[in-house]
């Protein structure tokens, strides 16, 4: 019988010696080229980190390939980043070009540092979840193929963080990303009153609705839906399997912009709705890829150096953002949830564009 509550392996045993020696003593860093970080310690010692892109969904054989690379070049030391990239950690500057060469030979994009587009935080989608409105890995792959050069270069005004979530649960970073891709439903769940009494708990199902669209029907031991109060979030389905909401014809993707997590210059902020709906179009989601590319390009052209997407938009104004990107503004962009009034403009301060 297995030992329990042992917790994860102690990270200290995973640290390369150069880090163990200079732990907490790093003095500054440089980014000599995309994908390479050089950290210099007070002791003068240097650590070279090489960042490689990853699909995040890895086979064990692929992980073993990564291990081989690490064993060959970095004495077996590596880490993953909070955005699921791989980082090879080496002491010996001479090894650097060899590692990079080998990585590129094997098709690993090297980059994601500085004013680049790093890996896309994303979620399970059709691969392993029961509530998705779209897939996770597919749109990410299709998009990264297209904007790959922003990963391997550092030419943007500031770093651009992209995230995808396949449903409104927003596993990951969608609610606070420079650009976010969100799977959405657009039709109400179907109440299956046959199954419901057996598989669902009525009070918790009623409570699961953010907009109070679900009424309990004690007599029939089921629930009824006030359809025009439903905004298709799908949370009831999470709680109650007898309320399926997926609708291949009408499910799709929405695009969000201007979110931010860091405190640099401006406070962290949520992503805001840019495009309410794009069709779900596997395997390569061309409409989504195009829409994101367009936003990136307009941003790259218009933003000042070090301006995050949201900071750029705040400076030029939302009216200008919509006119520059050619995205139509609709009543769907206007909030109507509980804090909506805080987003209404109470001034005459705007630009004519």
């Amino acid at each position, binding site marked *: 019988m297995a030992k329990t509550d042992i917790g994860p392996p102690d990270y200290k045993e995973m640290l390369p010696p150069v880090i163990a020696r200079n732990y907490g003593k790093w003095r500054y860093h440089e980014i000599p080229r995309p994908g390479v970080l050089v950290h210099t310690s007070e002791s003068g010692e240097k650590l070279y980190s090489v960042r490689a892109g990853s699909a995040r969904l890895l086979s064990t054989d692929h992980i073993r390939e990564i291990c081989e690379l690490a064993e060959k070049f970095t004495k077996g030391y590596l880490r993953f980043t909070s955005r699921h990239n791989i980082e090879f950690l080496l002491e010996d500057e001479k090894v650097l070009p060899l590692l990079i060469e080998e990585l590129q030979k094997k098709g690993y*994009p090297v980059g994601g540092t500085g004013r680049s587009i790093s890996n896309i935080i994303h979620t399970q989608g059709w691969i392993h979840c029961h509530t998705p409105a779209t897939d996770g890995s597919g749109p990410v792959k299709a998009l990264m193929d297209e904007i790959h050069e922003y990963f391997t270069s550092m030419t943007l005004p500031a770093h651009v963080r992209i995230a995808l979530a396949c449903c409104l649960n927003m596993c990951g970073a969608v609610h606070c990303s420079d650009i976010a891709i969100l799977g959405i439903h657009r039709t109400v769940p179907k109440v299956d009153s046959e199954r419901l009494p057996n598989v669902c708990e009525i009070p918790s199902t009623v409570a699961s609705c953010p907009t109070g669209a679900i009424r309990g029907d004690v007599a029939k031991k089921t629930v009824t839906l006030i359809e025009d109060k439903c905004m298709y979030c799908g949370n009831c389905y999470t709680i109650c399997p007898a309320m399926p909401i997926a609708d291949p014809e009408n499910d799709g993707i929405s695009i969000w912009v201007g979110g931010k997590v860091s405190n640099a210059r*401006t406070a962290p902020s949520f992503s805001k709705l840019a495009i309410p709906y794009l069709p779900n179009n596997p395997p390569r989601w061309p409409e989504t890829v195009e829409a994101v590319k367009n936003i990136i390009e307009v941003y790259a052209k218009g933003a000042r150096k070090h301006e995050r997407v949201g900071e750029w938009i705040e400076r030029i104004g939302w009216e200008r953002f919509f006119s520059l990107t050619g995205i139509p503004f609709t009543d769907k962009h206007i909030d109507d949830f509980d804090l909506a009034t805080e987003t209404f403009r109470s001034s005459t301060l705007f630009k004519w564009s």
Partner: protein
Amino acid sequence: MAESKTPLLDQLEGGTWPSFVKDMKQAAEKSPMAEDLLNQLELSYKEKIGHWKHGGIVGVKGYGAGVIGRYSDRPDLFPNVQAFHTMRVNHPTGWFYKTDKLRQLCDVWDKHGSRLTNMHGSTGDIILLGTKTENIQACFDDLSEAGFDLGGSGSALRTPSACVGPARCEWACIDSLDVCYNITMSFQDKMHRPMFPYKFKAKISACPNDCVASIARADFSVIGTWKGDIRIDQTEVEAYGASGLDINKEVINLCPTRCMEFDGKKMKIANEDCNHCMHCINLMPKALRQGEERGATILIGGKAPILEGALLSWVIVPFMKLEPPYDELKDLLERILDWWDEHGKSRERLGELIKRVGMRVFLKAVGLPAVPQMVKHPRTNPYVFFWPEDIKKEVK
């Protein structure tokens, strides 16, 4: 050559970015589970709909968390993923690995699972992507043998994560890795045995850049910061200028509090006005260093939209020194968890509970003083509650 069974997914095999389809096919060659997963995914691509049902309760002895149950809704077509549960394995803090450990992990998974993983999940766990119900316990036994343990799931403390911090960053104001590891080890029981109203997440970033997005993605956010003057190395400042950085344009003018000055030679900072945003330091790590008094800001309540709308964590302690064994931090965390546990409704996140009952009630309950740093600005509505002790005996 027979035509492909996955014409749609095949179109995601090429291209410049690493392909998850390649990995799935690689695994499919050796694992029937991976093969059925691949084929079911192809069906989803064809029909534009997922084929997974709700997961029932599956787990390992003594734990209530760590495994996400999942069942195919087309077991007729894909019998090998009829049951296909993921195991969440707690990653080594900071996601550092020595390859021998990684290889052990792969061996265990090849033996018991689909040969597919996520490195890593959004919460930070190693995701072992799918295996049958009967394999779970044995897999866990071998994982434990290899020195791994499961992460959190369900209404439990979720696997805490931390930025790389002092291991590789000059800006670490706290030992994010040690704090994270310490919390993880101290709260094992709360991770493995769900007893909370809902999930609870903790993330630790060692400076305001917040590289683990703790303010957005954790109920309990610890973010390193400093007091005291930013230390300026004027020669390095000049060096940056010489090396092509437009100091006035890129640094001075972008300082949000406009508390910096640069006359072309000397840089000045009115530190009392600095709000510690990191921007200038980010651009000039060689020349500018944070002040010497180090600690962390504690924030709570961050979460995604479901149910009451997304929240970014709110400041509850502007500055707390963090030295091992971090008792002050852990005591506070305990008090918060106890209060939430007692008052939270089912599936009500900490932030939602505070939204419902009010910050003042929370502060009184956990014994924290109100300070201006908790708010962007004081209330604008006059609906002010007074405590009984504020009121003179009534003489109406």
